């Protein structure tokens, strides 16, 4: 009878952030849907009550069904028979429970049968599901591909596909190919237009998560003879039409319940989604931003489980006549884990709120033209979302790996055995810093916000927020760190050498991330006392990290890169 939502009061803290009132009012168009739909909220309190009730369902399913199934799913895994994926038995049970509970298409508008949830509570559900079973979070979380259909497909396609997702059909995004991983411009899957306006897809895709899904978004080359991203378009393939088969599934280290497929397309009929040539440059970018936020949530869920498993073991395990949690070496590890967990979660939800605002404005702009103030605000939040998404994904996934590592360390020799959940989550954690863009690629996405000053101006805004007197000293330390960060940014910026800039990018991005997360935790502590400990611990971590990177940058002459370059 566990409930992964109600047992974690930190979630409600983030759900009830002051900015939510604005987000929900915008999302619900000042609650006018209540006239049309019998399940639409009457006001802000009613909407919050609905999110709370629905997340309670998510928490209950996760605690009672998905988490207890996770070990079996990890052992059994999916298999391929006659070109089709057969999920592990308990994966199927998990999916059935989510379908019956109506937890698919959560963020889709009501007119297509969705719950019309803002991104923030939807991402919270992903956070909870990931704690229960990281691999299953993929299958469930791929519902956010429907967002791409909603944003870019035509009305007929929306009416055809979105209600099916809300009813529980699964999705996949078929992007990667054997020779096109991080470099999606090299996608070769061939799309040929037919006289009736539909397209035929031919070729191979690889590493496709849930590749035997009901509805696929497919990136393919529609412009014969082109070689770069401008020749790629986005297609929707409906499994009911046939033509795509699963050749094999990968034998992976972790997230074993989530089938990673190699797909063959043989004259698979598909429809064009949006405009030709915009597949990679516009739609995949939008899709990836959503997916990256999803992985950030997945990472936080893993961190949560890692912390809980480690804490429970450290309280229980006795050595030298006392519980090991009483030893400074152990409790330090635990409090650092908690601080990283809390920091990455705060960043996740700050990012989710910013995504919410600009996406809702984008949606409103389809109904009426935005006022100049609204346009300005939308642009502002869009930029912040763009800046925080790679930080939340990049740093959150690294933290979850560190927490999974420490979780095993606290278990000692037992953690190395297959007897405890920590070994599974250690394996599951590993992919988070790789897929949907490696941490290194998140740095590439984030660095322009270092150089253009997005992070610095956001930090200045956090500095301007008043906090309780007892938190002032933490804030002062963050202000001092920001001076160090700004100095490092200037130093790196003053050298006109691309290789040097790329070499130092990771350090600058991490510094910005450390300071931003420090501020977010101070603001959390300002609102809810229980965050004070993590704010203190995290400021110590952040200060040490910022100092370390600053020293490295200060002492490093650009010519020294030669010592690192490996042929």
């Amino acid at each position: 009878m566990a409930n992964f939502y109600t047992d974690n009061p930190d979630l409600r803290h983030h759900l009830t952030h002051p900015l939510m009132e604005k987000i929900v009012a915008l999302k619900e168009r000042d609650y006018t849907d209540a006239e049309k739909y019998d399940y639409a909220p009457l006001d802000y309190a009613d909407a919050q009550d609905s999110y709370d009730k629905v997340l309670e369902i998510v928490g209950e399913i996760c605690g009672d069904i998905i988490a207890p199934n996770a070990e079996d799913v990890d052992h059994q895994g999916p298999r391929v028979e006659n070109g089709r994926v057969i999920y592990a038995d308990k994966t199927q049970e998990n999916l059935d429970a989510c379908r019956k509970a109506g937890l698919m298409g959560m963020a889709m508008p009501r007119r297509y049968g969705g719950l019309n949830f803002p991104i923030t509570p939807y991402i919270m559900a992903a956070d909870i599901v990931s704690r229960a079973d990281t691999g299953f979070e993929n299958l469930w979380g791929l519902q956010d591909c429907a967002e791409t259909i909603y944003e870019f497909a035509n009305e007929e396609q929306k009416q055809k596909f979105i209600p099916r997702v809300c009813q529980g059909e699964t999705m996949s995004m078929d992007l990667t190919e054997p020779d096109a991983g991080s470099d999606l411009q090299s996608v070769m899957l061939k799309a040929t237009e037919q006289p009736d306006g539909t397209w035929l897809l031919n070729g191979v895709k690889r590493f496709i998560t849930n590749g035997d899904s009901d509805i696929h978004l497919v990136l393919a080359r529609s412009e014969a003879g082109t070689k770069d991203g401008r020749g790629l378009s986005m297609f929707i393939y409906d499994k009911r039409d046939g033509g795509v088969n699963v050749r094999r599934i990968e034998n992976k280290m972790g997230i074993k319940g989530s089938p990673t497929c190699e797909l063959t397309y043989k004259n698979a009929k598909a429809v064009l989604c949006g405009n030709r040539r915009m597949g990679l440059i516009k739609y995949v970018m939008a899709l990836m931003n959503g997916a990256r936020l999803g992985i950030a949530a997945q990472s936080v869920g893993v961190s949560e489980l890692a912390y809980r498993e480690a804490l429970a073991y450290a309280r229980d395990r006795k050595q030298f006549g006392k519980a090991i949690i009483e030893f400074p070496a152990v409790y330090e590890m635990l409090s650092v884990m908690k601080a990283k967990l809390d920091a990455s979660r705060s960043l996740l939800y700050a990012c989710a709120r910013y995504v919410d605002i600009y996406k809702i404005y984008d949606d409103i702009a389809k109904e009426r033209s935005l006022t100049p103030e609204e346009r300005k605000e939308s642009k502002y939040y869009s930029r912040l979302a763009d800046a925080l998404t790679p930080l939340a994904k990049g740093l959150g996934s690294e933290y979850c790996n560190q927490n999974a590592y420490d979780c095993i360390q606290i278990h000692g020799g037992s953690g190395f055995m297959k007897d405890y959940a920590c070994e599974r989550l250690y394996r599951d954690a590993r992919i988070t810093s790789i897929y949907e863009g490696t941490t290194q690629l998140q740095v590439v996405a984030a660095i322009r916000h270092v150089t253009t000053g997005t992070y610095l101006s956001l930090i200045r805004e956090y500095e301007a927020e008043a906090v309780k007197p007892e938190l002032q000293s933490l804030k002062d330390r963050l202000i001092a760190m920001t001076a160090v960060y700004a100095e490092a940014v200037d130093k790196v910026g003053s050298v006109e050498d691309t290789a040097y800039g790329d070499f130092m990018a990771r350090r600058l991005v991490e510094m910005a991330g450390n300071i931003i997360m420090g501020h977010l935790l101070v603001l959390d502590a300002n609102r809810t006392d229980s965050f004070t400990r993590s704010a203190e611990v995290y400021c110590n971590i952040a200060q040490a990290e910022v100092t370390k990177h600053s020293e490295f940058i200060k002492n490093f002459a650009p010519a020294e890169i030669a010592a690192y370059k490996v042929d």
Partner: protein
Amino acid sequence: MSLNIIVLAKQVPDTRNVGKDAMKEDGTINRAALPAIFNPEDLNALEQALHLKDANPGSTITLLTMGLPRAAEIIREAIYRGADSGIVLTDRVLGGADTLATSYSLAQAVKKFGNYDIILGGRQAIDGDTAQVGPQIAEKLGIPQVTYAEEILDLKDGFVTVKRRLENGVETVKAPLPCVVTVNGSAADCRPRNAMRVQKYKFAVSPSEVAKLTDRQKEIVENRPYLQLQEWGAAFVDADPEQIGFAGSPTKVKSIENVVFTAKESRVLDDDDAAIEDLVKELIANHTIG
């Protein structure tokens, strides 16, 4: 074929997490100290009802519960999972009922309800553990009963086919409709609450709960009849005052004892697999494990 299904359910104290203040001095349950929940086997019964509804579109499920006005909570729980409506049978004069008076009162409510095809309920409630109410209702209504049901296999041509879970195996029986089926805890778990239904029905209230709503919510309830749960009293179901509540309850609790098993004898087993297997079988058979 659309069916009229009644599910009998009870709101019970959660005896699975019993603390030392769970029982009052007089041996009755201290309901205030324990959270009130949907009796677990009644949820198994609800799932069987929902299964019938899935297979027979157009069917309706009405939850019938006797208890305090707050028992409307479990009606909402049932509606969130797919039931259509509910009735709380509540009245001061119904209080203090044993199984005889309870089954009489519920049978009266079923008669008042009228047209029904099948009545489902949990095998027993976790607060009393008697398993008497379902069978007694069937007797009072003069209809067949199937107990220990694990799965309703089929319902057609005026008959229901049920798999029963017995001590040493299963038995499949067929009964004419209407009948009472009491469902065992080994049956399928109830499906989860549905996110859309939770939002649609969260203001579903019984008349005595209306007061706690805001004006806007009251207006919503007034305009949406499906949010109006029913509350029935003893007189409404034509109950004989002599047969309900304390007056209608011959059962009197004399005393309550905390039984601690004190058997001390030990047995030496042979050091082989067969002996261990025999012991495990014995322990399963006498319900020590399993």
